[in-house]
């Protein structure tokens, strides 16, 4: 049963005011040298924003469209001096936890401001609405279920799992049984049909690497896809290489994917990339009994083993 996300405008507005105040205090006291949040971008949508002066904190926004997982920007701050402030909601904190569990950023250099989140909208879908409708959605909170981010419908972590400062009351948490409906549909097809399905989709891939760049689990120091020696991935955008690319991308985050679905959301040609990640997550649950493979706190399933794991030799 998918969860029904809620758009709570007054709650978001309160959180925004408190976020600005908190960021201003942190920057003013020198507790952080930069605060990573969202600000209004050129197209009216929230864009990642790096506040370095207390007065810049007033430009921070917290509204129904703050869809980015900001944690990935920490990797650009590895070299810098001083602490980094970061605002996260539930899924943002999973992304952050992924990076922390992968030892890619020192926890002691972080000040995390957490905001419990009941649901966010997909910016692209909201942008496509006409002006009146958009106003009704963004100001009065009258959003129907289809406008929400996909990940909100399976979210079981509305409250940040990592936070130094929590703004607002925690929301009630309830278990959401994972459903991989699309994967089950695909599994029911014949191998030929599946091959054709993936071929038709992935020949559209532009190899822009947006899905890799946005992914909080794709945080290796050197990406296999960028390596020249060995050349894992040929540079020609031919179907065989497209499959190689998506094979490597999904399998390398197997067991570490936080199921935020950002890869899918940022894809300029709208490829349903989670069909790969969900398959791996579904199998991890089925084979190794990991209930919530998307939660980094439950140590990554491929980084451990059990004596009674399914016997691979007997499976042939």
């Amino acid at each position, binding site marked *: 049963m998918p969860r029904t996300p809620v758009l709570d405008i007054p709650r978001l507005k309160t959180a925004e005011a408190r976020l600005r105040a908190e960021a201003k205090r942190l920057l003013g006291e020198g507790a952080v040298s930069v605060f990573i949040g969202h600000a209004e971008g050129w197209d009216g949508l929230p864009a990642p924003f790096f506040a370095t002066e207390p007065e810049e904190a007033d430009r921070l926004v917290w509204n129904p469209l703050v869809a980015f997982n900001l944690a990935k920007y920490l990797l650009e701050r590895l070299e810098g001096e001083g602490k980094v402030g970061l605002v996260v909601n539930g899924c943002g904190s999973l992304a952050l936890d992924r990076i922390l569990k992968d030892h890619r950023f020192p926890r002691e250099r972080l000040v995390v401001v957490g905001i419990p989140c009941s649901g966010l909208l997909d910016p692209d879908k909201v942008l496509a609405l006409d002006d009146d409708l958009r106003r009704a959605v963004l100001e009065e909170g009258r959003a129907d279920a289809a406008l929400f981010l996909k990940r909100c419908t399976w979210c079981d972590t509305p409250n940040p799992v990592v936070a130094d400062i929590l703004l607002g009351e925690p929301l009630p948490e309830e278990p959401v049984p994972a459903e991989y409906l699309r*994967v089950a549909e*695909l*599994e029911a097809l*014949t*191998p*030929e049909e*599946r*091959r*054709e399905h*993936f*071929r*038709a989709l*992935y*020949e559209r891939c532009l190899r822009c690497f947006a899905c890799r760049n946005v992914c909080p689990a794709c945080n290796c120091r050197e990406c*296999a896809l960028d390596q020249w020696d060995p050349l*894992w991935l*040929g540079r*020609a955008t*031919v*179907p*065989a*290489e*497209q*499959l*190689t690319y998506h*094979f*490597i991308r*999904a*399998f390398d985050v*197997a067991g570490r994917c936080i199921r935020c679905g950002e890869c899918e959301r940022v894809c300029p040609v709208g490829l349903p990339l989670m069909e790969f990640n969900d*398959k*791996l997550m579904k*199998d*991890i649950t089925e*084979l*190794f009994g990991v209930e919530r493979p998307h939660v980094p706190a439950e140590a990554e*399933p*491929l*980084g451990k*083993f059990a*004596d009674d*794991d*399914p016997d*691979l*030799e007997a*499976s*042939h």
Partner: protein
Amino acid sequence: MAQTQASKLPVAAGEPAAPQGWEPLIVGFLCNWCSYAGADSAGTGRMVQPTNVRIVRVPCSGRVNPRFILRAFARGADGVLVSGCHPGDCHYATGNFYARRRLMLLKRYLEYLGLDPRRLETHWVSASEGQKWAEVVRSMSETLKALGPAPRLGEWFGADLGLATETGPGEPPETGSNERPETGGQRDA
């Protein structure tokens, strides 16, 4: 004898039927401590076994990156065999336990992408099990003979791009042209 046994296996539809005299090419990743020695003892014991496996010696089955396996299939392997010490007997104590999880997941993932899962096998062969090694090679060769040539990654994914240029025993018949494919997908390993 072997033929009748093999013909019982269903051949996946849509994959090319094996040409006359075709032999499958199997890439075997063998751990240095058990399976490589096991294969060696099969040889020194003069056991009769098919010659379809090309062996790559790795320190441990845990060393086998799933990308190696994808690469093997992309470059013309009809099957991939990963073989290591029995679980619990790993030279590095735990390497094959990690491999077991990873390969289990990989096998199901390859199946999801549309490759016949019987083309990837994992076996635990110790240094003294020459007999078992010979049996593994025999049974896998027969399975693959029944399945026929593997779709090259390009074809598997929809188009033949001439990516797999290395020759193997199962090289498809000559087309009579030596020109490079127009797609420019050719490159060396």
